[in-house]
C-alpha cells in the first residue's frame, strides 16, 4: 500500500478512534506502530498532514554541505529553544561533511549524526509515527534523514514559563520561599534538590487519552511501604480521561471516597512540604502543568500541620498546633454551640451574660438559627467574592462586607452584635487552618452542625459530632485509616501530632504509613 494513502487512512481512523473510544484495538495498534517511511518527503508530508499544518509547526529541509544528503527538521515553534536548534542541530549537521567525507550508507550517516554531530545531551531514536508525534507535541525537535526510516528525537525544550516564586496559597514566615511551578521538569528538579538520595524514584505515567500529560510519582525506595506504592500506581493506571488540566482531576479520580467532604489527598505548592512527605514514607504525585502536587496517603492531622511547625522551635510548634486544633473546633462548632445555648440551654450561660445576650437580641426579628444561617451564609459569599476578585478589589470587599454590612446589620437590628462576633470568630478560625481544602470541608460541616443544633440543641450537636466520627473512622486514604494515628492508635506518632516533640527526639518516621525504614534520625551524642 502506498505510504501516503495509508497515512490518510490512519489519520481518519485516529480521529474516529478518539470520537468513539477505543473500539477497534487491532487497527489502533497498526496506527501506533506505523513505521516511518524511507522517503523524507513522505514523512514530512505525513506529519504535516496529521496536524493539518498548523502555523506553529516548523518543518524545513536542508542539505548537508558537500554531500548529497537531504535532512528534514520539524519542531513546534514556541516549545523549543530556536537558538539551540540552530546552533546545536542545524549548523553542525550542515557542516558535517566540511572536514571528513561522509560515509556512503545512509545508516552510517544517521549513526554518525546521532553519535558525533549533534551536540545535545538528550537524543533518542524514534522508529514509529507514534514516537515521533508524541515527541513533537511535547516539544522535541525531530530530525529526519532522507532514505532512513528512523528519526532523531532531540530534546531542546524551552517555552515561556513562570519563574519559581513564592507559593501564593501557603505562605510561611520562616522557611524556603520557592514554590512549585507549572513545569513538571522544574518541579522534579526542586524535589531532587531537597532530597539528594540515590533512592529517590520518579515513576512516570502518561495521563490523558487525547492530551498525553506526564505525571510523576515520586517516592524514596526503601522508605515507602510497597503496598502503598503499588496501590497508588494501580489507581493511576485506571485513569481514563481526555485530559487532566490540573492535579485536582487526578485527586478526584483516585481518592477513596468521593462522597466525603474531607480531602483524602493533600495538595501543596511547597516543595519542602512535598519533600518532607516523601521522607516520611508517602507518595508525591506531580502533574505537568500545575504547581499543585498531591501527597498521599493523607490523614486528618496532616490537614492541621504546616511545614513551619518544624522550622520554629518545638514549644512554638506545639503551641501553634494546639491553637490550630482549637481553631478547628471553633471553625466547626462555634455557631452551632451558640445556637444551642441561646435557643435551648439558656441556663448554661452565666446569668449576667445571658441577660446581656437577651438584651441585645431584643428586637432581632429572626430566631437565632436563621440569624446564624444568614450571617454564616453572608460570610461564605464574602469569602467567595473576595477570592475571585483581583487582589486590590478583594480587600475592598473585605472592608465593605465585613465592616460596613456587619455594622449596618447590627444598627438596623437585623442581627445581634454577639452573633457578628460569633460568625467572625468562626470565619477567622477557619482561616487559621493551614490546608485550604480541609478548611472548606469544615465550612460545609458548619452548616450541618448548625441545622442539628437548631433542631435539637446540644443533643443535635453531639449526634452531629458522632456522625462526623463515624464517617471519619470509616474513611481511608490509600488504605490508611483517615483518623490515624489517633485511631488506630500509634502512640509513637503522638510525638508529632498535637504535641510537636523537639527535633532530636523525633527519630522515627510516622508509623501509620508503615515505612520500611522507620528510623529517621539517631540521637546525637
Amino acid at each position, binding site marked *: 500500500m502506498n505510504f501516503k494513502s495509508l497515512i490518510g487512512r490512519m489519520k481518519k481512523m485516529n480521529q474516529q478512534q478518539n470520537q468513539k473510544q477505543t473500539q477497534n484495538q487491532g487497527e489502533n495498534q497498526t496506527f501506533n506502530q506505523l513505521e516511518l517511511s524511507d522517503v523524507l518527503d513522505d514523512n514530512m508530508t505525513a506529519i504535516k498532514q496529521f496536524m493539518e499544518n498548523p502555523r506553529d509547526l516548523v518543518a524545513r529541509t536542508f542539505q548537508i554541505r558537500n554531500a548529497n544528503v537531504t535532512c528534514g527538521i520539524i519542531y513546534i515553534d514556541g516549545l523549543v529553544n530556536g537558538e539551540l536548534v540552530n546552533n546545536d542541530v542545524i549548523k553542525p549537521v550542515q557542516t558535517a561533511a566540511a572536514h571528513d567525507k561522509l560515509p556512503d550508507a545512509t545508516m552510517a550517516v544517521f549513526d554518525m549524526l546521532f553519535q558525533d554531530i549533534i551536540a545535545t545531551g538528550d537524543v533518542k531514536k524514534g522508529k514509529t509515527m507514534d514516537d515521533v508525534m508524541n515527541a513533537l507535541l511535547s516539544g522535541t525537535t525531530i530530525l529526519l534523514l532522507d532514505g532512513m526510516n528512523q528519526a532523531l528525537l532531540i530534546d531542546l525544550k524551552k517555552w515561556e514559563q513562570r519563574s519559581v516564586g513564592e507559593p501564593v496559597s501557603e505562605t510561611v514566615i520562616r522557611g524556603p520561599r520557592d514554590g512549585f511551578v507549572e513545569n513538571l521538569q522544574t518541579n522534579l528538579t526542586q524535589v531532587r534538590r531537597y532530597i539528594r538520595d540515590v533512592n529517590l524514584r520518579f515513576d512516570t505515567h502518561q495521563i490523558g487519552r487525547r492530551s498525553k500529560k506526564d505525571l510523576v510519582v515520586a517516592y524514596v525506595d526503601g522508605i515507602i511501604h510497597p503496598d502503598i506504592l503499588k496501590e497508588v500506581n494501580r489507581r493511576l493506571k485506571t485513569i481514563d480521561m481526555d485530559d487532566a488540566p490540573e492535579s485536582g482531576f487526578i485527586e478526584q479520580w483516585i481518592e477513596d471516597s468521593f462522597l466525603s467532604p474531607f480531602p483524602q489527598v493533600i495538595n501543596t505548592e511547597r516543595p519542602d512540604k512535598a519533600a518532607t512527605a516523601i521522607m516520611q514514607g508517602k507518595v508525591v504525585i506531580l502533574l505537568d502543568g500545575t504547581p499543585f502536587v498531591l501527597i498521599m496517603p493523607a490523614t486528618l492531622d496532616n490537614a492541621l500541620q504546616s511545614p513551619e511547625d518544624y522550622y520554629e522551635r518545638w514549644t512554638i510548634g506545639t503551641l501553634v498546633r494546639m491553637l490550630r486544633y482549637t481553631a478547628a473546633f471553633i471553625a466547626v462548632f462555634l455557631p452551632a454551640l451558640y445556637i444551642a445555648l441561646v435557643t435551648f440551654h*439558656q*441556663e448554661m450561660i452565666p446569668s449576667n451574660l445571658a*441577660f446581656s445576650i437577651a438584651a441585645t*437580641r431584643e428586637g432581632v426579628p429572626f430566631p437565632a438559627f436563621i440569624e446564624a444561617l444568614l450571617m454564616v451564609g453572608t460570610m461564605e459569599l464574602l469569602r467567595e467574592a473576595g477570592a475571585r476578585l483581583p487582589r486590590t478589589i478583594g480587600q475592598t470587599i473585605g472592608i465593605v462586607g465585613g465592616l460596613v454590612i456587619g455594622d449596618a446589620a447590627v444598627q438596623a437590628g437585623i442581627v445581634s452584635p454577639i452573633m457578628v462576633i460569633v460568625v467572625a470568630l468562626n470565619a477567622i478560625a477557619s482561616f487559621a487552618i493551614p490546608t485550604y481544602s480541609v478548611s472548606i470541608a469544615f465550612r460545609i460541616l458548619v452548616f450541618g452542625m448548625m441545622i442539628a443544633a437548631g*433542631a435539637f440543641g446540644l443533643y443535635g450537636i453531639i449526634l452531629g459530632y458522632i456522625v462526623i466520627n463515624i464517617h471519619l473512622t470509616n474513611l481511608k486514604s490509600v488504605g490508611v485509616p483517615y483518623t490515624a494515628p489517633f485511631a488506630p492508635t500509634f502512640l509513637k506518632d503522638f510525638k508529632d501530632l498535637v504535641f510537636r516533640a523537639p527535633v532530636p527526639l523525633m527519630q522515627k518516621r510516622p508509623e501509620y504509613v508503615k515505612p520500611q525504614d522507620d528510623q529517621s534520625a539517631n540521637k546525637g551524642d
Partner: protein
Amino acid sequence: MKRTALSLCIIVALLTGCWDVIDIEDRGYIIGTAIDLKERKGEGAYSLALTNQFVIPGNMTSAPGEGGGGSKPFTNITVDGESLMIINRKMGAESSRLPFYGHLKMLVVSEDIAKEKDLFAGVLDLFIRMQEMRRDIKLIIAEEEAKDVLSVEPDIEKIPALYLDALSENSSKTMSMLAPVTVGDVHGFLLNHHSYALPMLKKKVDKLVQYEGAAVFSGKGNKLVGSLNDQETKSLNLVTKPFKGGTIEFEMDGHPSVYELEFSKPDIKVKTKDPQSISVEVSVTTEGSMAEMFGSKSLINEKEISKIRTILTKKLEDQINALINKLQHELNADLIGVNSVLEQKHPDIWKQIKDDWEQGEDLFSQVDIKVKATAHIQSVGASDRASDGGGKE
C-alpha cells in the same frame, strides 16, 4: 441507596424537630423568688403568695452615657394561689414571657411559712424537684414579708436579688452572718432529719436589708422553732466551721478591746460507751491579734498577754455555753453537729439512739457538753502601746 434513605430519615427528623426551641429573649428570667403566707384556711390548707422577680434584660445594659434611663431592670410579679403549681400556671398567664427558673439565685421565705409544719418542706419540694432549678439556690428567711425584701432598691446593685446574693457572700468576712445555705443543703437536712439554721433577713430602710441572726429549724417537724441573735450566730459559726477573719470584743480593766481573729478551728469530740453516757467536748482554737487597745497597757509583757488570754477564753466559753444552753434546752436543735460526729465515729451507738436524739427521749438535751476555748495571741499590731509610743517590736 440505603445511605440516601438513611439521610432522608435524618433530614426529616431534623426538620420536624424544634419542639423545645425558645429564643433567649423570649424567656422571663426569674432571678429571685419570695414566698409569703396570705392566710390560713384551716388544717393543712393555705393561701400562698408567690413573688417572682423577673429581669428585664433590655434595661440591664444601659450605656453609661444614658444616665440610668429611669426604667427599672426588674419587675416583681405576685400571684396568689392554693399551691405553688397552681400559682406557677397563673404566673405564666400573667407575664408575657415564659417564666424560667434556670437562673434563680435567691429564694426568700417568710417566717410565717417557716413556722407552719410541713408547709415549708412542701414549698421547698418544688424547688428541689424541678430540673430547671439549680441545687445552689440560696435560701433565706425574711423576718416580715418576704415580698418586701425583693423590692428594696439598693443604689449599689441594679437588681435586689443580686444585691441579696452579693450580701450573703460577705458571710465569710462577718462572723455574725450565717454562711449561705442552699436548697440542695436543705434537701440533705430534710432527708437526714437534721436540725439546721438558715440566715435571717431584716429590711432596714427602703434601700437596704441586713442579715441578722439565724432561723433555727428542727429536724423533728421541719419547721421554724426559734431564732438566734447576732451573738449566738457568731458562736454557732465558731463551733461549726473553721473561720477566717472576724473580731471578738471584750473588756479589759474597763477598757473595750478588740481581738482580731485570723483563724479559728472547732473540734467536737464525743466519748461514749453506751447510749446513756455520752459526753461531748467542744473545743475552739483561735489565732489572732489585738487590733484595738483603748488602754495604754504594754502588750510585750507576757503577764499582760496571759491576762488577756484568760479573759478572752472566758468570754468565748461563756458565749458558746450560752448558745449550747439555748440549743439544748430552749430550741432542742442539734445545730453544732454532735449527731454527725456520733454517726461517723460511733455508728453502732448512733443506730440505737437515732430516733431518740432530738425527738423521743430527747437525748440531745440531756447530753453533757463541755466547752473549751483556746486563744492564741500572735502579734500585737505595729505598736504595742498606743498612748505613749514605747519600744517597737
